[in-house]
């Protein structure tokens, strides 16, 4: 890769991480003010895991995520306006206002669902990989899920299927030390989540989830392996979420053990900014990126606020390809 292209790519990683962080910070604050209905699970702290993974993919590769759904599509390159509009329940939202915070799936960037039933994305990703394989497109399907999700039968069955059929799938387990209030050690009998892969004789990597380059390198290798027909790969990213499981709940459910300071000291954005600067990238350029992103996020919110809410009859479309009938009492 030429130095220029490497530079562009590195800046893009920084840009996407910033985009996630700033999007999340804004979302959290407007949620606190009641502007976003429902529960909000933020991705702040985990940016390197998402961005490193997605930057290693082709644009047309598939991706499936979970309830913690904001970071994944942004990492894969999604535009912010439809995402923010979705959080506000607007018709212009990426899911037309029907999905909300747990489902910010942007199919235009290869996303095939951010599903809020823990573990349920894994079989879907295996199936997308199967579809890619059968159609000979050379695409891979990457699935994000948490440490807690590995205890679900769905995750087991999906990974087993992918392994038996040598599907081009990458299973990225974002180990952020907790599932809701439950420390990983209370829910998972293995030390490294990557040990789960042994049940499928699946290739696996463990990677520093705060280091976007390390994540990218691991997923690049995984993607190459999977794409070449050798089978799926399990990648464990060791990372950390900064906010509570869901924000603005009135109290923090997560029984932190003092580790939050260590993790925040290795903030993925700071780490990466430092690395870029050390490599000679002009700090001013990074500042510019940050303020460009601030504008982007502000613009997304303005767009969302200016957008219309969906109309009642839209509650009856997309159940099937054809709308289902709306009862008379709602027509008034």
């Amino acid at each position: 890769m030429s130095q220029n292209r490497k530079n562009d790519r590195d800046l893009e990683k920084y840009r996407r991480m910033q985009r996630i962080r700033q999007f999340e910070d804004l979302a959290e604050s407007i949620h606190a003010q009641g502007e976003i209905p429902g529960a909000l699970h933020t991705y702040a702290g985990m940016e390197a895991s998402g961005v490193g993974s997605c930057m290693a993919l082709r644009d047309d590769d598939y991706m499936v995520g979970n309830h913690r759904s904001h970071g994944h599509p942004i990492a894969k390159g999604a535009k912010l306006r439809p995402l923010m509009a979705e959080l506000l329940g607007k018709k212009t939202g990426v899911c037309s206002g029907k999905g909300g915070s747990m489902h910010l799936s942007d199919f235009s960037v290869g996303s095939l669902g951010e599903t809020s039933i823990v573990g349920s994305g894994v079989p879907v990703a295996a199936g997308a990989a199967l579809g890619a394989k059968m159609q000979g497109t050379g695409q891979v399907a990457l699935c994000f899920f948490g440490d807690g999700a590995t205890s679900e039968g769905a995750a087991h069955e999906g990974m087993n299927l992918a392994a038996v059929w040598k599907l081009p799938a990458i299973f990225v387990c974002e180990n952020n030390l907790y599932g809701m209030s439950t420390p990983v050690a209370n829910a998972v009998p293995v030390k490294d989540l990557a040990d789960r892969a042994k049940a499928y004789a699946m290739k696996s990597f463990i990677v520093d989830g705060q280091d976007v380059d390390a994540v990218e390198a691991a997923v690049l290798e995984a993607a190459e392996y999977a794409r070449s027909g050798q089978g799926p790969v399990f990648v464990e990213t060791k990372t950390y979420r900064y906010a509570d499981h869901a924000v603005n709940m009135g109290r923090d459910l997560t029984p932190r053990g003092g580790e939050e300071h260590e993790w925040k000291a290795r903030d993925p954005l700071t780490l990466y900014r430092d690395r870029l600067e050390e490599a000679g990238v002009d700090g001013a350029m990074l500042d510019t990126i940050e303020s460009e992103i601030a504008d982007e996020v502000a613009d997304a919110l303005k767009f969302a606020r200016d957008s219309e809410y969906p109309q009642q009859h839209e509650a009856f479309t997309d159940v099937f390809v054809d709308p289902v009938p709306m009862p008379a009492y709602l027509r008034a």
Partner: protein
Amino acid sequence: MAKTTFLDAIRQAQEEELERDEKVFMMGEDIVCNVFGTTTDFAEKFGLERVRDTPISENGFIGAGAGAAMVGMRPIIDATISSFLFPAMDQIVSIIAKSRYIYGGQAKLPLVIRSCMFYGNSNAAQHSDRPYAMFMNVPGLKIIAPSSAYDMKGMLKAAIRDDDPVLCFEDSTCWMNKSELPDDPDFLIPLGKGDIKKEGNDISIIAVAGAVPIALKAAAKLEEEGISIEVVDPRTLVPLDREIICNSVRKTGRAITVDPAHQTCSAASEISATIVENVFDALKGPVLRVTTPDTHLPFSPDIEKPLYPNVDRICAAARQLMDARQTVSA
């Protein structure tokens, strides 16, 4: 024209659609070895890429069907026996039924999940489920339950070509029923349209799946007694053809719903509720249900078989409706 069995109609429908569209493929447990006869020689004809034996993991491979469908494939998933849908319930309800909706129409899930209903042959409670009503309570799933070889072929082909997920419930008591089948490779029966299996004037019997042939037998017997029966087969349970049901009852003024499944919250109950809500003024008597009582299915044959709807029970219900006094005790 030669007559074809229900089971072979399934095979034909699949074979024709596999031939027609290369995006169509099949997966399921032990389908290569063709356990029930619906995939005869498929592995040889279409290869192991398109006819895939799966590990025993229903939630996994049914969910994989969703993923494959989202990227352009059209899976036919053979879940063997409908009892094995329970382990896959989450992928069916949370993913397959809901994905198109929660993503605001971005996803399309053209897939078919087939499963047969085993009952009446000492399969015991864990293999004797007829769970379509449970899925009827979940929006987003089309559901078919054909009762003849003719309907089976036309509806399964339509289901495979449909862009929405379709659950196909195959009543094993219909497996050997025969029909003449049209040659047309585009023979399709549109989903959502019921069928009057027999016209009549005194009582509408709305029967589901394996209950249809039984209702027809009962109708013949009642006809001899001078009671004229109309037999309505909804064929598709979602979307349910409420109009054909209500129109029939408007004409006859009397209705019996017959369903081989457990009674409470059954398709029979739904049809009864639909009738009393919509055509009450036409009703000359109660809407009676002939179903399987709310107990499990025992292994021992002599106490299993009488639990299902049969000709006698339908006839008794019909006679009761034709009588002057029409109440039943709670």
